[in-house]
């Protein structure tokens, strides 16, 4: 269909600016000139910086509001429960940063040190970075175009002094936008262990998850698995289960089977999760016996196992 090509070859492709799908794109001339293909020197700088980070996990979602930032926060909390594990949480949702609120760090500011920006620590072994810390007021709207957002992501990856970190969890915006392209490109030399994709049970959400999976394949980003959130609700009074978000086409389970992607687990809806996030507390501390906590712990363990198995795989490749 005229006017809406669906396959951007990418600025660094030999086809940049010359493909049929480039017709009509305002950037066509720039890409055709080859200026876009010059590698950003920041990629190497970021690779150096990432040498002290053992694992990098991206958290993606097709749709917003499926609990991705809640999940990222609790993945970080869960990994950091082992005091000897150093965890970092990077929020690259530039226009809608919610991590400071969820982590109970609203009002915190970022400090500059000789080695760069210092993360804000919620625990000794859990540091957080977000554009939310750079805003003067929680009401400030971040109205930035792509290049400025990309510049901020570059700074977050290159200029933050994370120190020695076992796991870097990166909370991304919903969908597949500039920010996703940027973070994947900047981390290209450092490698990403994999992506966790959040969804809710209904088909409208799953439609977009298939796009996320397609994106991951396209940019050669490994998929750790899918998490189905808000999967059923237990009434606190009669204890019976309802489906607030009906899995009309079989939910994430059927989709994962069809696409041969691991389903890491299902997290039920629990009103305490929202309340914990509003208070900036870990849900694991607030409601340790909730079925949702058990689901989270199981999912986090599978993610940990994936990262560790990938590490030993890499080590095997290196050994003579």
């Amino acid at each position, binding site marked *: 269909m005229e006017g809406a090509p669906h396959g951007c070859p990418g600025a660094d492709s030999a086809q940049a600016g010359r493909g049929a799908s480039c017709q009509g794109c305002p950037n066509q001339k720039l890409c055709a000139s080859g200026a876009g293909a010059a590698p950003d020197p920041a990629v190497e700088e970021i690779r150096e910086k990432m040498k002290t980070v053992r694992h990098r996990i991206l958290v993606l979602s097709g749709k917003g509001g499926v609990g991705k*930032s809640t999940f990222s926060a609790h993945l970080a909390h869960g990994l950091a429960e082992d005091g000897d594990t150093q965890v970092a949480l990077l929020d690259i949702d530039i226009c809608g940063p919610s991590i400071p609120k969820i982590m109970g760090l609203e009002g915190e500011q970022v400090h500059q040190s000789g080695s760069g920006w210092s993360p804000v620590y919620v625990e000794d072994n859990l540091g957080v970075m977000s554009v939310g810390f750079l805003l003067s007021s929680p009401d400030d709207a971040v109205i930035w175009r792509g290049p400025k957002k990309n510049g901020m992501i570059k700074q977050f990856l290159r200029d933050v002094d994370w120190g020695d970190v076992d796991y870097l969890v990166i909370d991304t915006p919903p969908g597949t*936008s500039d920010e996703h392209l940027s973070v994947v490109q900047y981390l290209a030399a450092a490698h990403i262990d994999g992506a966790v994709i959040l969804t809710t049970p209904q088909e409208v959400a799953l439609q977009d998850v298939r796009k996320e999976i397609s994106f991951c394949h396209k940019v050669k980003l490994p998929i750790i698995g899918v998490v189905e959130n808000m999967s059923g609700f237990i009434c606190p009074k009669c204890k019976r289960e309802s489906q607030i*978000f009906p899995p009309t086409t079989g939910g994430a389970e059927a989709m994962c089977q069809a696409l041969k992607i691991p389903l890491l687990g299902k997290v039920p809806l629990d009103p305490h999760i929202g309340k914990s996030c509003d208070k900036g507390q870990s849900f694991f501390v607030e409601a340790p016996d909730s079925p949702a906590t058990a689901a989270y712990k199981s999912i986090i363990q599978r993610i940990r196992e994936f990262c560790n198995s990938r590490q030993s795989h890499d080590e095997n490749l290196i050994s003579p």
Partner: protein
Amino acid sequence: MEAAAEPGNLAGVRHIILVLSGKGGVGKSTISTELALALRHQGKKVGILDVDLCGPSIPHMLHAQGKAVHQCDSGWVPVFVDQEQSISLMSVGFLLENPDEAVVWRGPKKHALIKQFVSDVAWGELDYLVVDTPPGTSDEHMATVEALRPYKPLGALVVTTPQAVSIGDVRRELTFCKKTGLQVIGVIENMSGFACPHCAECTNVFSSGGGEELARLAGVPFLGSVPLDPQLTRSLEEGRDFIQEFPKSTAYSALTSIAHKVLHQMPALCS
């Protein structure tokens, strides 16, 4: 006073409603769809423009996925979703060959397509054009608002959920509206409470009360709360007309009440 843009294909549109949200996933597309259906049931002729380039969901909600878009002299012809041709839809979803394909475009290309959507769709005569914008204050969001801002009368509906984290994003959204000179018709709080179908106990799954308080603090009208309703979710999943099929549900009364307020709120923007 800003000079009016050449109306072109929007010349026949009486009112444009932007549906905004600070965060995705608060049900903005649901509210856009149900508002359009409710306005249609009030006898209005309605168009829907789905500008969520990376995640178009409205064709699915209106059982219009797979429909082909045709060209006419003045541009793209929107897809009619009902027999009476009183509700029409344009979405990037119609332009994708493969619904599972990821749309990974850099900003300028998205902006160009958004401008095309705004100027090149032959809507004809409409009482209301409901525009489902991309979530947050992203590039596409800004491009959509900037492309539509010259047209009048233009009003914004801001959709949120009760959860305070969502409230933070709506505060930013309202700041955005103020900065860009957009008039706010009101705030809608979606996913407000869930009544257990087994015992009727009402639970605030996503907290409570935030949307109303926020509207008060921001000095904009609070248009109402829409409860969590599995019938509504299922209806959208199956592409059915919830307004027509479930008149006894709690979400129905909330949605029709909101549509009523929108109908009476819009003329004030003309003055």
